[in-house]
């Protein structure tokens, strides 16, 4: 559903596209809700960073991409992975540490990647994707096939120097890089405004690229900004910056309360406000589609059920997988195991 011209209506290609957007968001929501539940009930290995509340940003952007466009993600990367077409089965198996995982259990939640779908991967290093996306954009430019490279990063990552360096190179070389800053106002346990000067979007403006700051919980707004940026990439007109203003509902990671030991960096009221039906990206889009007659209650229940079933199947798939293959560690690092 990359860039075809469509007319709005209750049925037809445009309506189908809206349903697809909703389905993707539902899949991400249910997948992550399930991860939260599993982390709580039986535990998952390592740290689990969820993007619940930010689904519209991932889906709005990735819905404009083709399978061979590139995308780099963050430590909060499940939504990006699924939005770009990654499979929930192999993502769950990865998080469960199984050899059927998309990275064979070697990377886990913070490193899900699927190069066959242009998903360069999540990253444990804040800001780690910025230069990598810029490099992929260089390759795309050299290929000359009009591909784009999207870089998702947080408002916290925007304070890393590499953000400025990557924008500069992208701009000066007219690379097809799309910088997508998911501004959720938080950097781990710090409120970003206490450590960030000026407006992030002004940083992008300084490098002479088009800037759009959008309501990141409005999937259509995100999609239309992304569409313009992707078209610029296709035409060889260089990088763009999109800021999706959003909020993460869950903690920085699922074990957050343990780490905070009674401390806090935000209020329950703030979380509730973003959780409200008219602000939550999923329920908001659902209401809109109902109002427009595109997706009534029955249809929604059906879509919702289908997403849940996919997630159930993914859990079954993950649980049934073989443990990771230790020999692979050596092979992948060019090492003969020590006797």
């Amino acid at each position, binding site marked *: 559903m990359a860039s075809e011209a469509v007319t709005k209506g209750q049925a037809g290609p445009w309506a189908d596209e809206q349903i697809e957007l909703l389905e993707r968001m539902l899949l991400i929501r249910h997948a992550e809700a399930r991860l939260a539940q599993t982390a709580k009930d039986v535990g998952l*290995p*390592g*740290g689990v960073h969820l993007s619940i509340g930010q689904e519209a940003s991932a889906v709005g952007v990735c819905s404009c991409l083709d399978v061979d466009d590139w995308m780099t993600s963050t430590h909060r990367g499940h939504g990006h992975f699924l939005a770009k077409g990654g499979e929930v089965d192999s993502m769950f198996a*990865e998080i469960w*540490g*199984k*050899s059927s*995982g998309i*990275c064979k*259990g*070697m*990377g*886990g939640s*913070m*490193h899900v990647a699927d190069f066959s779908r242009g998903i360069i991967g999540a*990253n*444990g*290093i*804040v*800001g*780690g994707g910025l230069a990598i996306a810029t490099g992929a954009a260089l390759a795309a430019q050299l290929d000359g096939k009009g591909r784009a490279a999207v870089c998702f990063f947080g408002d*916290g*990552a925007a*304070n*890393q*120097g590499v953000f400025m360096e990557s924008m500069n190179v992208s701009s000066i070389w007219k690379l097809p890089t799309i910088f997508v800053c998911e501004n959720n106002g938080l*950097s*781990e*346990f*710090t409120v970003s405004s*206490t*450590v*960030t000067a000026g407006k992030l979007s002004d940083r992008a403006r300084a490098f002479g690229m088009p800037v759009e700051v959008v309501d990141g919980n409005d999937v259509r707004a995100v999609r239309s900004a992304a569409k313009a940026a992707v078209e610029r990439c296709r035409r060889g007109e260089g990088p763009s910056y999109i800021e999706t203003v959003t909020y993460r509902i869950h903690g920085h990671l699922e074990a957050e309360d343990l*780490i*905070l*030991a009674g*401390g806090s*960096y935000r209020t329950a009221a703030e979380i509730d406000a973003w959780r409200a039906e008219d602000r939550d990206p999923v329920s908001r889009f659902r209401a809109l589609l109902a109002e427009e007659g595109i997706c009534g209650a029955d249809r929604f229940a059906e879509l919702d059920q289908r997403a849940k079933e996919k997630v159930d199947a993914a859990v079954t798939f993950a649980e049934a997988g073989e*443990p*990771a*293959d*230790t020999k*692979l*560690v*050596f092979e*992948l*690092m060019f*090492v003969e*195991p*020590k006797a």
Partner: protein
Amino acid sequence: MTRKRYTQAINEALHEEMGRDPKTILFGEDVALAVFGDTRGLLDRFGPDRVRNTPICEATIAGMAVGAAAAGYRVIIHMLFSNFIYTGFDAIANQMAKLRLMTGGQIDLPITVLAVYGGGASQAAQHSDSNHPVLMNLGGIDVLVPATPGDAKGMLKTAIRNNRPSFFLQASGLGAVGGDVPDGEHLVPLGKASVAREGRDVTLVNVGSMIRATQNAAKKLAEAGIEAEIVDVRSLVPLDETTIVESVQRTGRLVVIDEARDMCSAASQIAAVVADKGFSALRAPIRRVTVNNVSMPYAPNAEAAIFPNADDIVRAATALCQPEVAAA
């Protein structure tokens, strides 16, 4: 003497040293709410002039440490996971390690860098490095790897108080481990290893995080009639060669246990020192129990297979104590 967790011991040292010298300042990402609990309460007590949450910008955090120290402050920075040292590495390797030399000794850099290292919790490759060898190789920077809460407090206080740049590396697996911590003024000299257990048959040199595996191995070895001496190295730069070599002179055998990758590990350095200075005492080859030259995989089973454990140590030590090995 009070029983405290390793993290609490660090917290106590930070409180005491910041209380002692008003020119001591501390900054880093999330030091207010304290991701690892070690910096908890400092902001409330010493205020936002001296304790600051920084943006996510390791290159600048490390660079500012150099600048503020050169300009007269005693600086403590927190780099969170030791993997994030890499994003701040220019200021560490090109500036912090070299400035004193390059400026002909015009300045001291009283900087203490806190970071948490090591694997074992499925944090995957970018949050599990034991990268003390990278730092040891720079020169000009102390590298401290205390293994007990008491040493954590005493060594951190010494490191903050002296005028040398140092890395105080906390093993992620030891944070919750308890131990006796002397109250108040407790300074442990740097560059002094400690003999944590006496034994006549084999020397086990522990590097930081491996202390529990090393202790468990010594117990298992004792059950099999092999008495291991544990030398806890405590500090890698400066390295207490004397205590290590003297122990090997008593036992004739050496196993070094280090969570770093084997290539150019602390274990290789210690093995080289003993080959050099304790050669005549050796009755068997030196063994290193380390991580293979691989990054930590995420899957718990794969990580456990890579991670050195007590059985690996027992196997290595037992083999050295076989008569034919000794004779060979």
